[in-house]
């Protein structure tokens, strides 16, 4: 398929979806003067449509609860383009057609969930199968829930910031403007949750380490401190994987509307933040061991929600921080507050600090100390969500800004829910920074604009 043909394919799909509906609903809310004939108007409204039974359309309640089977899914097209020259081979940041199949089976004593995507990914020129869920959930005891199989796991209190949630993330999807759902990657795990006296104990065991879908240079480029330049190694990015397990635990309770939790993790860094020489003499990236513990609290505060979270990361292969090829240990602290400041406008702010624990040793041992992050890497985030037209039109703005790295990342988007079946969204991933090696600064050329159309069935 040549590029022009692919573009035609994409545009045809969009037209297909658009043309299958009539014109877009326009918000023409004419405030009428009701002062003279209030009652008459009310009566008119009633006689015009209120008593018509056919207002319910099919007039049938969805019977899905009666059948143990439920089938759902969607078809989505997405297209995105880089806003700057990028050293990546592809010119698009996103160009794909995704079909989701979802099958649930409910039995009295267990549930089976299967959810998978078939995606024609034009950026990679491949058709990919992605199983999001394939699990069985049951309660072997009154106060014990078990979910076994492929699943998405989440906990913690951060918004796009993760401290104690070390479950797999998909940064490629996040950067390319796919739905937020894809930020969480699935893992093959067993989650057991035990409830007793208002306390919840979660234990998640991932028998085979599941890493993040980190940047490899295939879709997005990144800065290499070894090469001292932006690189896009793609398949040349050699990463040694481990097959060992990950353990994640959480103990949670709440009292008077205040939620408390403590967390533990035993496993590996979820991105390849270590490098070592392989037996063949090559330098290869790998996932160093990581243990962590932490705590969080979330509570109502002056008509909003306040949250605080802490995590201690122990990079146990280099606890002294003297090996420049292994990520240092960290303290991570997050404070957040969310409130609906004006009707339908929700604002949330977060302040996040990542302290490198053996900073002195890191500086001393590094061959490129000038490229290192500050001892206290700080981040401020702002989220604004404005909903209008009966929540059918949603404006969303999210920004990361680091006063220590002098860089940032802005994610604006607009989503229009045309109907229960059709949804359209467009947005951007915009990176900026003073330095080309900093956390977000390195992604400046990865900045992109995207749009998506989704048909749910």
């Amino acid at each position, binding site marked *: 398929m040549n590029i022009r043909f692919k573009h035609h394919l994409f545009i045809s799909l969009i037209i297909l979806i658009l043309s299958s509906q009539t014109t877009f*609903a*326009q918000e*023409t809310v004419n*405030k*009428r*003067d*009701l*002062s003279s004939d*209030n*009652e008459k*108007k*009310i009566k008119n*409204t*009633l006689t015009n*449509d*209120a*008593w018509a039974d056919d*207002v*319910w*359309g099919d007039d049938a*309640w*969805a019977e*899905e*609860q009666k059948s143990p089977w439920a089938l*759902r899914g*969607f078809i989505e097209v997405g297209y995105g383009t880089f806003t700057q020259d990028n050293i990546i081979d592809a010119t698009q940041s996103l160009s794909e057609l995704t079909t989701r199949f979802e099958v649930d089976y*409910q039995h009295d004593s267990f549930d089976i969930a299967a959810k998978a995507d078939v995606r024609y990914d034009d950026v990679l020129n491949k058709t990919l199968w992605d199983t999001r869920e394939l699990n069985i959930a049951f*309660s072997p005891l009154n106060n014990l*829930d078990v979910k076994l199989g492929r*699943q*998405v796991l*989440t906990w913690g209190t951060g918004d796009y910031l993760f401290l104690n949630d070390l479950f797999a993330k998909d940064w490629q999807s996040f950067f390319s403007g796919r739905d*937020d759902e894809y930020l*969480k990657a699935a893992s093959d795990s067993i989650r057991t*949750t035990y*409830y007793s006296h208002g306390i*919840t104990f979660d234990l998640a065991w991932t028998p085979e380490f599941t890493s993040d879908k980190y940047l490899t240079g295939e879709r997005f480029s990144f800065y290499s401190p070894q090469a001292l330049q932006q690189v896009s190694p793609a398949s040349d990015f050699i990463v040694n994987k481990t097959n060992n397990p990950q353990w994640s635990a959480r103990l*949670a309770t709440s009292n008077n*509307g205040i*939620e408390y939790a403590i967390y533990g993790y035993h496993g590996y860094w979820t991105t390849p933040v270590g490098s070592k020489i392989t037996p063949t003499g090559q330098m290869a990236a790998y996932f160093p061991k990581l243990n962590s513990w932490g705590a969080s609290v*979330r509570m*109502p505060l002056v*008509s*909003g*929600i306040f*949250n605080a979270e802490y995590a201690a990361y122990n990079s146990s292969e280099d606890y002294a921080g003297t090996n420049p090829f292994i990520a240092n240990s960290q303290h991570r602290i997050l404070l957040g507050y*969310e*409130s*609906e400041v004006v*009707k*339908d406008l*929700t604002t949330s702010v977060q302040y996040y600090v990542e302290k490198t624990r053996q900073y002195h040793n890191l500086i001393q041992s590094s061959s490129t100390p000038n490229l290192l992050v500050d001892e206290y890497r700080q981040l401020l985030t702002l989220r604004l969500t404005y*909903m209008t037209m*009966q929540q*059918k039109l949603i404006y969303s703005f999210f920004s990361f800004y680091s006063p220590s790295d002098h860089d940032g990342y802005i994610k604006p988007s607009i989503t229009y*829910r045309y*109907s*229960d079946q059709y*949804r359209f969204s467009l947005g951007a991933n915009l990176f900026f920074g003073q330095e080309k090696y900093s956390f977000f600064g390195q992604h400046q050329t990865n900045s992109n604009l995207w749009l998506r159309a989704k048909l*749910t069935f």
Partner: protein
Amino acid sequence: MKNLFWGLSILLLASPSLFAETLTDVNQIIQKSNLASYYAGDDGRTQARMIIVDSQGNKQMRQFTILRKDKADLGDQEMLVFFSRPSDVNGTVFRVTKKVNSDDDRWLYLPALDLVKRISAGDKRTSFVGAHFFYEDVSGRNPAEDNFTLISSDNGLYTIKAIPKDLTTVEFSWYKAEIDTKTFIPMKVTYFNEKDEAIRQMQVLDTQVIDGYTTVMHSKIIDLTNDSFTEMQFRGVQYNLGIEDNIFSERSLRTPPKQWLR
């Protein structure tokens, strides 16, 4: 003899409508109305569906099951709302702890991310999942927020005018509630702006007596400024099921309690 007396008392208490006398204390009417509308039984379960119709006639549908448990009549309540339709919200669960003396606690479970999101109590007069019903219409407006005046009591209806104590928290200036004198169900509530123009109206289209409680089975809210509206219907209503307290917890978000959802 004593038993007969108790029997009669219970009969009288249980069916006040038989011997209904016209009340004149507006606060008593409001209290009874609040009780009848939101506190029937000690707990309850219902299936509900809404059709949301915009001013162009475009329709959206929501279907969900509600579980409710009262901590005390006219007091705090626990509520869970399990969404099943449309398919993109299937599995979404909304949890509220309604508190009479402070802000409600609210959570939303998003199954695709396995995320339990806490929502700020904020503005209760915000659309409930895109419908013309506000959160406050679903869980009940706190009577302490308004001053009431009884305007008339005829044709089987108490007509009451309510003026909010704090006008900055609402989008209307006052409202008129027409409450059935027998059942104490508000059959029609009309909201007016500062020019005394009707801007919004709630109507009860159908009620049924279930387990002795008069229950709204079909209601509608119209935005009179653009004629858009939402209709809500209920079915499978049951009261006094004995739903345990621990059902109203984070566990039910991830693992919906099947025995109560059938």
